[in-house]
């Protein structure tokens, strides 16, 4: 009998020591521990959730359809080249996800089928209509999500955030968690920017170009586009440049007619850096092309001297300088009234590369650091006050046995914190609520036992017999009632998002540990008291 108790005590002592070691990093004491301890012993502890330490939780949707559209576009222009090479006269037009080719001849069908087996036939007859097969479209969407994930990771790495979490969710969503970011808006812009860099020739030689107004007011873009909708040649488009007056700050938009086909794109860049303009001491971004890009740039500039070349980022023209001479060496620059931060972020996104498709933000939860601090303080306060209230109530109602229950309760709290720390679990605000509720529920097992013991005492049993049979009879009730709470906690864990998951974790850990402290902890104390001397009466 005595031996059994000793083992139980050792078990309790060991778990207690372990719990304290694991939880130590979360206490101020950890600072004073020796260096070998800090490196070799558990040093992470409980991790604070985004809602407690402040930070961003973002969900983006990669618009996979756009990626398919872009690929369709690319297929169409390659087909045009192929037809030209084979001296076939064909008219290739793209609208959204379909490519339409006229005329419909066996030669043309052969070229398409030989070169693009992933194109599915939608219509044959007087004209040919193709679209990318569903299977291939699915693959493109999947790849674009993977690429977007990789690109975002690169951007965030260069932006500098400690311990970011970036992962895919579902078919086409990307979840980004950035703890402790000070400027949320900047981070969102940096991640969400498509950063599609293009160089396009300005179509000044087209007749209709002279009819387009020099400048318009912001907001009038749609109107202008609809006015010129049918008038401009099919291989051109109108994009806008934003001009800010240095003195007045007034904003005007400059419509520019451009060749649709990009002469050069951002995927040929090798580097992007922030530089400072000496005249206006204004930052700009200087670009360097890789070898292929540099050759192409030289070719394009040589063939188009005295024409204008527009630099376009995400369909906004940044500048459209006149090409004075052939440019070798592969350097270019983007200017445009940037602040230092804007220029730096632009260089980051250009270096990290463009997203394969635009992204839409689905969710943004930003928590400032001060709210997180307030929440932790409030949680601590509520926890301490709640615990004290329960402790006092138990002593008031159960006297000496109440003290035993309180001891079990404290053991419970320490073990719960230790267990969370050992798992490096994430503590969220609802998680704090879970701990505090677990404190309220923790005494239930003891209450169940005590009530049984009282029943047994009333029935005339000796204190020792009352303890034993009260404990035995309460066991299955305690077990059943814990399992039911665990069921709901499991459901919460399965379906909940971040903060709710944190709640499920603390509640279920709290309940499980409670089973241990009630069945092993409390019982041992009663046993110790009983073995020392047979109690005359039990203070319960």
């Amino acid at each position, binding site marked *: 009998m005595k031996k059994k108790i000793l083992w139980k005590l050792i078990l309790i002592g060991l778990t207690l020591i372990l719990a304290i070691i694991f939880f130590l990093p979360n206490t101020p004491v950890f600072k004073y521990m020796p260096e070998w301890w800090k490196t070799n012993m558990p040093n992470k502890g409980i991790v604070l959730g985004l*809602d407690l330490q402040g930070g961003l939780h973002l*969900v983006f949707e990669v618009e996979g359809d756009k990626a398919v559209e872009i690929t369709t576009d690319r297929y169409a222009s390659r087909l045009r080249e192929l037809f030209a090479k084979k001296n076939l006269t064909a008219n290739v037009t793209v609208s959204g996800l379909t490519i339409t080719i006229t005329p419909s001849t066996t030669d043309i069908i052969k070229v398409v089928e030989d070169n693009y087996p992933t194109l599915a036939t939608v219509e044959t007859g007087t004209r040919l209509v193709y679209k990318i097969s569903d299977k291939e479209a699915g693959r493109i969407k999947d790849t674009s999500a993977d690429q977007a994930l990789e690109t975002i990771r690169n951007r965030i790495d260069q932006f500098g955030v400690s311990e970011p979490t970036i992962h895919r969710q579902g078919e086409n969503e990307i979840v980004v968690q950035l703890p402790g970011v000070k400027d*949320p*808006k900047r981070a*969102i812009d940096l991640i969400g920017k498509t950063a599609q860099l293009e160089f396009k020739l300005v179509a000044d030689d087209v007749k209709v170009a002279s009819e387009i107004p020099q400048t318009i007011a912001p907001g009038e873009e749609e109107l202008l586009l609809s006015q010129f909708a049918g008038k401009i040649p099919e291989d051109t488009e109108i994009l806008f440049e934003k001009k800010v007056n240095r003195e007045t700050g007034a904003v005007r938009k400059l419509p520019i007619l451009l060749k649709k086909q990009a002469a050069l794109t951002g995927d040929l860049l090798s580097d992007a850096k922030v530089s400072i303009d000496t005249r206006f001491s204004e930052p700009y971004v200087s670009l360097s092309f890789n070898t292929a890009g540099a050759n192409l740039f030289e070719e394009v500039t040589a063939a188009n001297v005295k024409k204008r070349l527009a630099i376009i980022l995400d369909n906004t023209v940044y500048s459209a300088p006149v090409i004075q001479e052939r440019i070798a060496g592969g350097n270019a620059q983007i200017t445009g009234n940037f602040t230092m931060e804007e220029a730096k972020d632009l260089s980051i996104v250009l270096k990290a590369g463009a997203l394969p498709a635009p992204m*839409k*933000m*689905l*969710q*943004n939860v*930003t*928590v*400032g650091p*001060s*709210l997180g601090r*307030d*929440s932790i*303080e*409030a*949680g601590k*306060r*509520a926890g301490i006050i*709640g*615990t004290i*209230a*329960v402790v006092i109530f138990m002593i*008031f*109602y159960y006297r000496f046995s109440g003290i035993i229950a309180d001891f079990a309760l404290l053991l419970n709290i320490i073990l719960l914190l230790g267990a969370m720390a050992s798992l490096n679990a994430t503590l969220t*605000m*609802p998680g704090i*609520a879970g701990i*505090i*509720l677990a404190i*309220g*529920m923790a*005494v*239930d097992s003891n*209450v*169940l036992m005590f*009530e049984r013991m*009282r*029943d047994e005492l009333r029935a005339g049993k000796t204190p020792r017999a009352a303890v034993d049979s009260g404990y035995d009879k309460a066991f*299955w*009730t305690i077990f*059943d*009632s*814990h*399992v*039911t*709470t665990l*069921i*709901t906690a499991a*459901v*919460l864990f399965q*379906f*909940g*998002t971040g*903060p*709710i998951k944190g709640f499920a974790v603390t*509640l279920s850990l709290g309940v499980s540990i409670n089973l241990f402290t009630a069945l092993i902890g409390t019982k041992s104390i009663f046993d110790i008291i009983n073995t020392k001397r047979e109690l005359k009466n039990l203070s319960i």
Partner: protein
Amino acid sequence: MIELIKNTNINFLGKRNIAFVVSGILSVIGIIAVIQIATGHANLGIDFAGGTAIQFKFEKPVALHDIRLALEAGGLKDFDLQDLPSENKILIRVKKIDHKLGQVSETITSVLSQKVPDNKYVVDSITEIGPKVGGRLRADAARAVAVAVIGILIYVAFRFQFKFGVGATIATFHDVLAVLGLFFIMGREINLILVTALLTIAGYSLTDTVVVFDRIRENLKLKQKESVEAVMNTSINEVLSRTIITSTTVLLTSIALFFFGGEVLHDFSLAMIMGVVIGTFSSIFVASPIVLIWGGKRPFAKK
């Protein structure tokens, strides 16, 4: 030995008709709330409805009225304001989302910096939820409640008998409906954190019910000669003390959370307080009578 509740012999099951009226009213309110939520007439939180919520903390006290005027002048429509004057905090919520996500919060912050320039602020939190995520969270929450209820039914049916499972499930569902209904009537926000509270209440109330059922099962085996109703009454009286003590301790911590736990957990703890009270009521007055009314063969009779 303090015994506040000593050898009671209250005829709980005899009062079942009164209890059923109370429960009936609570449940009907709850069902109305569910219908209103489903048809979009309830005060859904932005995590379910989609939209933008921003909380600002100002340096100096701000008048809600000034903020309202400033935002209206800035062209913002369909927003509601809430303040926490003790900490100079203002919560702005805009439920409509016909813009790109992020635009509304940008408008609000720029309007406030322009119109309230002499009072500096920090952004405590921004929550922007697009319609897709809102719909998904709604569906997830509904599914979570359904799965929890089924899980409870299966476990109790497995550990006891099917009709006990049904009794426990109805009692649990009753509590969830009642708290939801009360929140609806009070015009409080129905959001993710409330659903969390509801599921916690379900778990807690079930614990209460299981303890009662446990004693009923034990006594049904011991007292073969007494009627089922009498055994149920005795059992409820026997565990009454435990029911009340445990409810008190959980209530104590919920109240601590309500008063000291900060604004984030305010509604959560309010729901918990209601849930503990209603859950205790239902485990005494609702669960067992349902098993009794179900009738049939005496449960757990010796063969």
